[in-house]
């Protein structure tokens, strides 16, 4: 095998596959990427056995063949390569030579025969989504990350739904750690070919990888085929193995009474929460919210550190209400609100609190209170 490729054609993809190749799997060979020649270019594959990637990059093919090569080392070599034109060829005993006129590397390759197959997906019913919207959706899902050894499917995975609502095609994603929840709806373009279909669970890890390949503009094709969630760009495709398991029925939890809305200035509220969380610690995560007489008094009491309080004027004319929250949950949720004002919907100490943007956008964050 021998080909010549421009540094620029592969430097991006080599960075993006590091997450996949870097993850420990049961097969040592997944530290490598597979490079296969094709007509007028090469096909690069990477996998962590749960998420698989394949992309086509133009190159001048001088001799056909395939190699498996360490992803991290290849990335470092390409990144620091002094000139644009890179020569790659395989040699005896799976040695791979990467060179230019003056630079020469010999890398130990692995046996491409051993490289796990990225499944061939055919006849997928794709629909289109805006790449940036999908990216933002995913970001609002994966920040509620599973911890450590977590195995519960509804925490490890994100619910992905395709529905028809009020005559519109909607893609909905929901993420939770059972103490809070984020839900984002995406209204599909009528031309997008999105159809209502059964709900699936996509692992958050896989979504993180997909996110790396999403551009800030343009569209991508989305499909669900068999056991895979598929995202396809012009030259690149990513497949994520779906998870088995149920997602709890959350819809009854989302009922809100608009008369309970309270409005805040986003930036100010964020700063206030940050000030209050200075005195929280692992053992004292709570900040107390006291609503009374058009005022919100926030207070932190931490037996080992001290206490703090701050007030803010708000629209609150109901009975006084005192409840506590983990301020981190609030800060993380509010960060995703795109409007200058934040809408908060609070009923009582037993009910979830909703955080929404102050417009018609469709993202919703739900946080369960604490009791102190």
């Amino acid at each position, binding site marked *: 095998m021998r080909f010549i490729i421009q540094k620029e054609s592969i430097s991006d993809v080599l960075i993006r596959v590091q997450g996949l190749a870097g993850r420990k799997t049961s097969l040592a060979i997944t530290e490598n990427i597979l490079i296969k020649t094709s007509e007028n270019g090469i096909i690069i594959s990477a996998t962590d056995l749960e998420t698989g990637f394949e992309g086509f990059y133009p190159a001048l093919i001088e001799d056909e063949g395939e190699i498996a090569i360490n992803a991290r080392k290849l990335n470092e070599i390409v990144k620091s390569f002094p000139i644009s034109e890179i020569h790659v060829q395989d040699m005896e005993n799976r040695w791979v030579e990467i060179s230019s006129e003056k630079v020469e590397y010999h890398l130990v390759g692995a046996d491409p025969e051993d490289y796990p197959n990225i499944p061939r997906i055919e006849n997928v019913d794709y629909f289109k989504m805006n790449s940036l919207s999908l990216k933002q959706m995913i970001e609002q899902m994966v920040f509620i990350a599973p*911890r450590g050894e*977590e*195995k*519960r499917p*509804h925490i490890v995975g994100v619910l992905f739904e395709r529905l028809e609502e009020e005559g519109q095609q909607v893609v909905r994603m929901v993420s*939770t*750690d*059972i*103490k*809070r*929840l984020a839900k984002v709806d995406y209204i599909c373009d009528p031309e997008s070919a999105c159809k209502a279909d059964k709900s699936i669970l996509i692992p958050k890890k896989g979504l993180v990888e997909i996110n790396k390949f999403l551009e800030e503009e343009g569209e991508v094709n989305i499909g669900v085929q068999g056991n895979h969630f598929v995202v396809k760009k012009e030259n690149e495709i990513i497949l994520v193995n779906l998870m088995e398991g149920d997602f*709890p029925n*959350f819809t009854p*939890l989302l009922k809100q009474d608009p008369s309970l809305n309270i409005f805040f200035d986003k930036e100010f509220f964020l700063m206030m929460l940050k000030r209050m969380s200075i005195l929280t*610690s*692992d*053992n*004292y*995560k*709570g900040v107390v919210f006291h609503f009374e007489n058009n005022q919100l008094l926030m207070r932190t009491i931490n*037996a*080992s550190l001290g206490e703090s309080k701050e007030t803010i004027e708000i629209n609150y004319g109901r009975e006084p209400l005192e409840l*506590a929250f*983990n301020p981190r949950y609030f800060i993380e949720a509010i960060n995703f609100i795109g409007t200058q004002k934040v809408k908060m919907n609070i009923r009582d100490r*037993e009910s*979830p609190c909703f955080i929404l943007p102050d417009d018609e956008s469709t993202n919703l964050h*739900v*946080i*369960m*209170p*604490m*009791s*102190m």
Partner: protein
Amino acid sequence: MTKIKILPEILSNKIAAGEVVERPASVVKELVENAIDAGSDKILIEVEAGGKSLIRVSDNGCGMGRDDALLAIERYATSKIATESDLDNIGTLGFRGEALPSIAAVSRFTLVTRQADSDIAAKIFVEGGRIKSVGETGAPLGTMTEVRHLFFNTPGRRKFLKTTTTEIGHIVDVAVHAALARPDIRVRLVHNGRVARDFLPVSDPADRIADVFGPDIRPLLYPVKRPGESISISGWIVDPAMDNGSMNRIFIFVNGRHVKDRGVAYALVDGYAGRLMKGRFPMAVIYIEIPPGQVDVNVHPAKHEVRFVRPKEVHESIRSAVAAAWQSDPAPRDQDAGPRMGEDNSQTEFRTGPVFYGRTRVSEPDVPYDSGRRADMPGFGEKVMHRSKNGQPAKMPRKKPGLEPGQAMQAPIWERTGLLDAVLIGQFKNAYILCEIGDELVFIDQHAAHERILYERLKKKRDAGAIPVQKLLMPETVELGASESALIEEMVGDLATLGLDIEHFGDETFVIKSLPAMIADREIKPLLIEFASELAGDGYTPGLLAVMDKLTILMACHGAIRANQHLLEKEMRALISQLAECDNPFNCPHGRPTTTRWPLRTLEKAFKRIV
């Protein structure tokens, strides 16, 4: 009319049948129990060759008339119960009418017994279950039962007898159990003509404990007292420094009967509340008095076990009785200090050896039985085990038990002094804080110490009802195994007060609605399962406090600073002074020591400045 009646067959069938006579010690046990039931206050046990050739138990109890004596060796003949309902109300040690006939069936058996109303004693000789002769003889009031050549007619079982040393070891155990059960009775054991144990009657059971284990145990005893309407707990627990890896040194007496009971043992461990390492057991003598109807003694052929009708109640009584015992001072120390312990058998000896009676000691035929002393000398029972090598009776140094020079030791729990006067030296390996306290170099395990501090703080918050609780948006369902769910179901109420709001959803399914905030990021299911299976394994249902404690420990461990964390001088000082404020500064909640001490003398010795 005779006192002894033969039980109707239905009733006798209900009684746990089985192997009463397993080895010489079981014979001794049965005979001693009969003597106690007969109201004796003096029991003499004489054995030869570990009981293999002779066992003779003499008492000064009520004795039997000739007809009763003949009935006594009939199967299912007992004076102690008559009707089926008596079986639920057993107040005596015996109740089956099975012991004497079983013993007589496998030995050459002689019974000599005289009642107060007769001048002459009945004498019966039975060989292999057959009555060979019935006669009369002169004898003191009471009963003498002699068992020769045990298993002479069952060679198979005779073969299974162990060495004399092993068998006498078991017999010593029986004597000790009887002695602890009834401090008011004199129990004397003679082996091959030598007095092995002689426990004189005492009015304070602590004296009996000291007689059994040696006077050094006294300063380490904490009295347990919990009188109750139905259940009363009393006894002594021993300082945790005397812990060991098995339950062998936990002596449990239920209505005067020595039993083994894991549930009670674990309740006891719980009462030590973090003063013991996981897997370690304390030494303790615990008396449980409970109405006979509340406990079934008829569950084990040798009566080694009992079943409580309401185990949870019993366990909680024990746990709280033991927990309360730490508030009291240890028993006053023996003031008449004898010569001090020699240098070379000081601390290690004290910890591991001579305080306790034990089979290993008994097994050295020349050592354990001192024929040179008169058996009725007070305190005779202890003497053998408490001699130091130079022949002086070993005494604890009076100063600080557990802190003898030459050994780094964890301080006994009542020693709370010092930490406040600690002079900080520095940190070692980012894990241990070094300081100087008086004449000692003290190491503090920073993780263990912080765990203890957090744990006590949490506990205070918890007791004040101030644990932050994270509510769950989506209640979590947990499926447990059958036995686990039964246990968890019982504890639903207790768990709720901890912020673990859990509801039984039917069958083995539970729904969790809130979690203590500190562990809200963890999956609760494995914790619950581990917790439930631990409880199931212990056969012990703890009360609310124990549940809270387990969870609190988990939470404290979660938040504590790790080993391998560099601490600033200020942080170390803060840690030490916070530790000093703890109720129990010397153990982390898991029971590991937080501090260890090196007396100056140890160093001086190491540098050969002193010898």
